[in-house]
């Protein structure tokens, strides 16, 4: 369907210009020329599944861009605008403890962790796909042991099972994501060892069956379910 695609392209730039994503989230926005775009968007969304899927995809992409986002109690995430700058009202929240930090895809390194380690009430930390986070960085996380409950290291190219051994200090950890770590030599075995090391923690990552090979006589075929009478 060529025509809808053309119209989709037209729609997308207008979105970014007017912070349409926030509008999609349901926040209050000023009236005016948004009304016209909203009705056109609604119209398109109602009539084409592709538009809805595209809108959902663009929303997800905006949310996981290369910016540092924070969340504080009972409020939304604080996000930077399209230039990567935070709004000046951010300064008013200096005293509020930071509960969660999303540093996915961020170029944070060993020295940069200095800033995160000062957050004594941090409960959730996401370091997904950070290119410079390695085993040395993981050995620095122990000051967060009292508060940290959720940690995600999915997709970090430099983290290996040797760094995961340092997570032993984080005894309050309840959810740990170690999926897609290319530097881990034996993902299945590592998952088991990490689960043994942190018994109160739900370790998400590798299915233990990944390291197993299929036997020669087993066929990957489900038996046919009986036809309901």
């Amino acid at each position, binding site marked *: 369907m060529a025509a809808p695609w053309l119209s989709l392209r037209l729609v997308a730039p207008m979105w970014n210009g007017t912070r349409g994503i926030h509008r999609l989230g349901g926040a209050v926005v000023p009236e005016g020329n948004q009304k016209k775009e909203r009705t056109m968007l609604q119209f398109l969304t109602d009539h084409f599944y592709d538009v809805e899927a595209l809108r959902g995809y663009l929303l997800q992409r905006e949310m996981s861009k290369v910016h540092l986002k924070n969340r504080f109690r009972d409020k939304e995430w604080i996000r930077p605008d399209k230039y990567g700058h935070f709004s000046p009202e951010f300064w008013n929240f200096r005293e509020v403890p930071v509960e969660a930090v999303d540093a996915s895809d961020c170029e944070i390194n060993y020295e940069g962790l200095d800033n995160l380690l000062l957050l004594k009430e941090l409960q959730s930390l996401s370091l997904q796909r950070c290119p410079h986070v390695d*085993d*040395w960085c993981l050995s620095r996380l122990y000051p967060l042991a009292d508060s940290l409950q959720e940690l995600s290291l999915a997709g970090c190219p430099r983290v290996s099972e040797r760094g995961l051994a340092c997570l*032993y200090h984080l005894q309050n950890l309840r959810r740990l994501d170690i999926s897609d770590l290319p530097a881990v030599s034996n993902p299945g075995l590592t998952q088991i060892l*990490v689960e*043994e*090391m942190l018994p109160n923690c739900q370790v998400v990552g590798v299915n233990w069956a990944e390291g197993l090979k299929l036997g020669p006589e087993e066929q990957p075929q489900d038996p046919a379910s009986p036809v309901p009478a």
Partner: protein
Amino acid sequence: MIRRVLLHGLGRGLLTRRPGTRRGGFSLDWDGKVSEIKKKIKSILPGTPRDLLPDTSHLPPEHSDVVIVGGGVLGLSVAYWLKKLENRQGGMRVLVVERDHTYSQASTGLSVGGICQQFSLPENIQLSLFSASFLRNINEYLAVTNAPPLDLQFNPSGYLLLASEKDAAAMESNVKVQKQEGAKVCLMSPDQLRNKFPWINTEGVALASYGMENEGWFDPWCLLHGLRQKLASMGVFFCQGEVTRFVTSSQCMLTTNDEMVTLKSIHEVHVKMDHSLEYQPVECAIVINAAGAWSAQIAALAGIGKGPPGTLQGTKLPVEPRKRYVYVWHCPQGPGLETPLVADTSGAYFRREGLGSNYLGGRSPTEEEEPDPANLEVDHDFFQEKVWPHLALRVPAFETLKVQTAWAGYYDYNTFDQNGVVGPHPLVVNMYFATGFSGHGLQQAPGVGRAVAEMILEGSFQTIDLSPFLFNRFYLGEKTQENNIM
């Protein structure tokens, strides 16, 4: 006519430089040209001529500013920092002479590979902290174009030192010093220890110190290989040979107290090739003794220790080889992934090796039990009688274990105070030491290398002051004792 032209061309070549001595310096295929010339001569001249232009690529250069005796991690570290800190690029010619290119007996490769900051001396702590940051940033320090990045396989699991009642006070004061220097170490009571590591039996343990950051173990071969690769790219010369002689010149001088003192200076080093009587005299300005367990022999060649005992001339370098065993065992119910390197009150130590429930460890023997360092044969009875009982007491899971393999290596043991010797000799003015670290040479190599390079280039220690490690202390009798030796 052709003969005259050839000989004339050869004559010029002979006068300027000896072909084959400088390897890899030219892109004009010098070796190829040389072999072509040799072929031409053979075809022209009657009979079999004696070997014109013999192949000398295995010999070291005739002149070198610095000759480093010993190609282990300490020698290579000194070479690296000399080239890195020199003021003019290519200003200093450094030659590393290593007797055994397979490193079969070198302490570096046989080492357990641990790094920790839990020492009693501030200088040792600072050296170790610097080495940790060196290893962390190793791919910036030792980057070579088009070479893959180094993976040290560093396990940041930390060291856990256990102290009995009588050592507890010393441990507490040590930890205070370590914290002051910036090491991240914490003290634990037996209850906390049981909570943290339930597989430990805390009987007899009064206090424990646990390193949280910058401590662990890594692969020493990777560091060695990385250093060699980087040095080759920096233009350092390597030679496989043995130093058999120093040619020195002496000067008699009067001190301010009107005493006669003979100052020696080494101006030539004879490097003998393997399995041959061939040797090459290398003119040099500075010699660095980084020969590890064999440093005393090198020092004796320079005349250190030849004199009446009790005088400065008669003070020998008190470094001797001591054999230490390392055993690898398998224990399926042993401690898990979080296991640090545990050093027991009895001196026995162990650490996890890999993911397959394997552990390695050992114990330093007492003075009476010292094995004969003539060879590197392993005494398995030592494990059964002197190591296993202590391990099984401390970690009950180790009562059932199976030894897989074992090896032995040398400590370059400083019999005086078990700490390194760094810096120049007072009488042999151009011999610098970087040896005698008694089991913690690998973890201090980057810092020591930098200190020796600073001493040579600037005349004094710039970053970490290693004056307590100078040679003079052996004559003056001032011990720089390190209490935490494994």
